[in-house]
């Protein structure tokens, strides 16, 4: 076990853990934001640069600080490492700059976007963004594309985190989905708009941190904060069948995987609970699901707004501390 100090909090982790995962072990606002890193996807991370942290001392053996800010999602910890995240002015400045870079080509069409309310870029912009823009040129634009008959791709909103590419690579049998071109005209594509027909392709919607990949069966139907997320399970031969159904009254508007507080699909019984396309797109009937109870939503999320019903499980959590 190695000891690291992140924002003056000491934590012991396994050797080889990344700084980001060590910070997640502490939890709270010590955790740097991550747009591209997804712990359930191998090889993800290192691209968006929002998780940059300052390393004030490299290790106990060599306590020199690192000259550059390092990406916490891909830098392993060393024994005696001292990391500064929210205590560092430099980190804050550069994170604000990265936010600005991510937003210069983003259409900012949150009022239309189905991801609004659960969008990581919104959170990042809320914390680190500036009110105005210094970008005077025309933003990069693409037409929305259908990927298959159930997924809509808005390339305008994409921040090229590559998460969906890794998902297509690791979850589905044959990859028909990748990044074309390079530089600031790079785009996600399925090679001449070839449809993805795979049982798990719908998970690219769940991993997308922004609204670039959205569910066509939920497209413009409602806003996430008007829906009630309920934990539900079903008998499914392809996947574990553990999902969150988003209900409006007695109707199921959409089905997603169970995401934890970092927006990643939860592990259930030691396996990542990806859900299959049939569960996601076709089971919109309440009788096909066993509703287990309301999903715990962060009180500060807009999804929790106007929900006056007291969540009993949340209350017991507060009381017992579990």
């Amino acid at each position: 076990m190695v000891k690291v100090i992140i924002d003056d909090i000491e934590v012991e982790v396994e050797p080889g853990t990344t700084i980001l995962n060590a910070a997640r072990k502490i939890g709270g606002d010590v955790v740097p934001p991550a747009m591209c890193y997804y712990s359930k996807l191998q090889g993800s991370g290192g691209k968006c640069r929002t998780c940059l942290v300052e390393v004030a001392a490299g290790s106990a053996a060599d306590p020199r600080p690192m000259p550059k800010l390092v990406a916490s999602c891909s830098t392993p910890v060393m024994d005696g490492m001292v990391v500064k995240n929210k205590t560092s002015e430099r980190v804050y400045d550069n994170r604000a700059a990265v936010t600005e870079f991510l937003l210069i080509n983003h259409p900012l069409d949150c009022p239309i976007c189905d991801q609004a309310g659960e969008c990581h870029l919104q959170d990042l912009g809320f914390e680190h963004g500036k009110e105005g823009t210094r970008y005077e040129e025309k933003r990069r634009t693409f037409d929305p594309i259908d990927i298959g008959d159930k997924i809509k791709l808005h390339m305008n909103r994409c921040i090229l985190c590559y998460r969906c590419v890794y998902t297509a690579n690791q979850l589905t049998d044959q990859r028909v989905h990748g990044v074309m071109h390079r530089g600031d005209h790079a785009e996600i594509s399925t090679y001449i708009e070839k449809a993805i027909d795979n049982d798990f392709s719908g998970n690219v919607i769940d991993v997308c941190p922004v609204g670039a990949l959205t569910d066509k069966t939920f497209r413009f139907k409602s806003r996430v904060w008007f829906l009630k997320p309920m934990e539900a399970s079903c008998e499914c031969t392809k996947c574990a069948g553990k999902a969150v159904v988003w209900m409006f009254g007695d109707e199921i508007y959409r089905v997603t995987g169970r995401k934890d507080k970092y927006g990643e699909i939860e592990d259930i019984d030691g396996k990542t609970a990806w859900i299959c396309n049939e569960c996601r797109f076709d089971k919109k009937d309440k009788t096909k699901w066993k509703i287990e109870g309301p999903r715990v939503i962060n009180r500060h999320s807009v999804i929790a707004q106007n929900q006056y019903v007291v969540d009993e499980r949340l209350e017991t959590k507060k009381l017992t501390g579990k």
Partner: protein
Amino acid sequence: MESLSNRKKVVSNKKMTFMEKMYFPAIWSGMMITLKHVFKKHNTVKYPEVKREFAPVYRGQHVLKRDEEGRENCTACGLCAVACPAEAITMTSEERKKGEEHLYREEKYASTYEINMLRCIFCGLCEEACPKEAIFLTDRIVPTYFERNDFIYGKDKLVEPVDQRVDISKRQLTGKRPA
């Protein structure tokens, strides 16, 4: 115990004097006050013949604005509904089809939009929440009806007609953030 607010008054039931028992001097002074007010400027106006001038930020009946080209500004983002403390607003959205670009500004629009004027408390939070400058409260007064259903205003009453624009320029000037 001593009162903390210092406003406590002990009620006394003391005996009246002879002059107080006469009552007439007190009635006389009361009548004088009434007489004085007859010649003073009136505080009320004779509505509906006379109408009082509204403040520029008066919050009356809502309007859903169109842009210069006559397209509806509202994109049914739902922020007004989530901001509404009285839960008076409801809407459904739809995707703009090809050929409707002259009707709606963005690719999504509100296919229905209803405000229940009985629930509405005219707080103006919907106007504040709107990111598209679509909903504004105006100086028009919501009339009275006999039926409850008449108070549910749909798009037919809320969206401004293309040829009869509702002027909201005064409140736009007052609400601007400093540059």
